[in-house]
Structure formats: structure tokens, C-alpha cells
């Protein structure tokens, strides 16, 4: 910075145009959903530890697998898995929304609002469906 200032021969530094940051924009649903997409992505990133643990435990033997089963069967484990399910489905549906934009569709205000709502409602409904099917597959809650 000092070098730049020293090298400047035109007196006071001109203020350069800067790119506006988040706070100048109106808070819209699409804006919030964009944040959620990134947050769920980061959550799923660390959630991959669970998938790795699951696979390694299964490959290690019955003893290691029983620890995994104990954790996932506990209340905390179930809450984590429920959150993971929602994050995964939210990121997936939100990702489909981004792919639709990538091919140049869905930019009208009404379409954007609809897709944002569909991501919220769809991800919650799908999470519930997956869990109901999961419990049915196990033969009821245990």
C-alpha cells in the first residue's frame, strides 16, 4: 500500500469503484436460499465423516459396527441423521434450482419465488417422507 501511495504522482488517491457487498441488496427469499445452499453444503462436507465412519465400521467388524449403531440409534444420533437428511435433500433440490438457472430458465420474479418456496417445502416434505419410509422399513419406531 505504501509503495502504491509513494508511486502515486497525482496527489490524493482517487477512490476506486468497489463492488457492492451483501448488505446493499434487498433481502429476498432467493438471497436467503443462496445462503442456505452454501451452509447446507458446508454441513454435508463435515457430514461425510459420518458416511466414512459407517463404511469403515462395517468393514472393520461387528464390534466397530455396534458402536456406530449405538450412536446412530441414540437421540443425538437420530437428530444428527435427521438434520443430515434435510441438509442433503435441501442441497439437492436447491442444486436443481441452480441447474435450471444455468440453462437460462427460471429468472422471472414469480419463477424465482416459486422455486425458492418449492426448495423449502419440498426439502421438508421429502425429509419427512424418507423418515416415514425408513421407520416403516424397520417395522415401526424403536
Amino acid at each position: 500500500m505504501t509503495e502504491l501511495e509513494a508511486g502515486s504522482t497525482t496527489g490524493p488517491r482517487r477512490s476506486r469503484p468497489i463492488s457492492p457487498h451483501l448488505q446493499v441488496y434487498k433481502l429476498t427469499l432467493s438471497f436467503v436460499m443462496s445462503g442456505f445452499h452454501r451452509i447446507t453444503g458446508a454441513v454435508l462436507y463435515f457430514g461425510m465423516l459420518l458416511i466414512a465412519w459407517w463404511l469403515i465400521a462395517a468393514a472393520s467388524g461387528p464390534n466397530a459396527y455396534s458402536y456406530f449403531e449405538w450412536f446412530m440409534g441414540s437421540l443425538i444420533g437420530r437428530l444428527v441423521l435427521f438434520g443430515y437428511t434435510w441438509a442433503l435433500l435441501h442441497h439437492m433440490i436447491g442444486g436443481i434450482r441452480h441447474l435450471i438457472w444455468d440453462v437460462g430458465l427460471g429468472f422471472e420474479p414469480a419463477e424465482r419465488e416459486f422455486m425458492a418456496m418449492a426448495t423449502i417445502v419440498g426439502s421438508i416434505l421429502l425429509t419427512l417422507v424418507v423418515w416415514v419410509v425408513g421407520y416403516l422399513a424397520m417395522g415401526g419406531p424403536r
Partner: protein
Amino acid sequence: MRTPMSRVRGLGAAHTGTQDFWHQRVTSVAGIALCIALVIIVIGLLGRSHAAVVQILGSPIVAIIMLLFIINTVYHMWIGMQEIIIDYVHEDKLKLATLLANTFFCFGIGLASAFAILKLSFGV
């Protein structure tokens, strides 16, 4: 002075052009099918004994789908976390450290998971 052509040849500051952007789209499309497959596999394994889980996870179709899921996901999440780091971490040394940590984490998760799937498939 750089002409537009030299910018194109140089492929921008990262020297890889839009490769990460495009690969993130490719892995996201593949990820839709693979995530649905993962959910179905997990539901099918709920409440089963360890022996049954090993047998199902080690069967060729399931193991291949799981391997595809792991490889696709760790690449997708590597690009995604790199983008987050580049957006928020501006201090050079910290940026370098977090970018390296991202690579090590994704590589470690990917290799460990792939090894586990292969062990389930081939036994021993």
C-alpha cells in the same frame, strides 16, 4: 497490456479457466442420481445385522454405486469448500493452510471410504 486473446490463453488467475465451475455442474448432475441411490441403500440397510449389511454393501451393484457416490461427492465438496475458502479467507498464509486442509480432508475421506467399500467387497 493484455489482449483478450492472451487472457484466454492464460486461462485467468487460476490458470484453469472455468474448469472448476464446469466440474461442479457435472458432479452436481451425477450427484442427484447418486444421492437418491444412497438414500434408498441406507433405508434398505436400516435395522439389519452387521452380517447382512456387509453382504449387501459388498455386493457388486451396491458397492459400485457407493464408490461412484464417494468419488463424485468428495470431488464436488472439494471444489465447493475451495470456493467458500477463496470467498472468505483473505490472509495469504491462512488461505494456503485452509486450502491444503480442504484437500487433505477430501482426499482422506475419499480414500478411507473407498478402501472400506473395497474391503467389504473383496473380504479379508
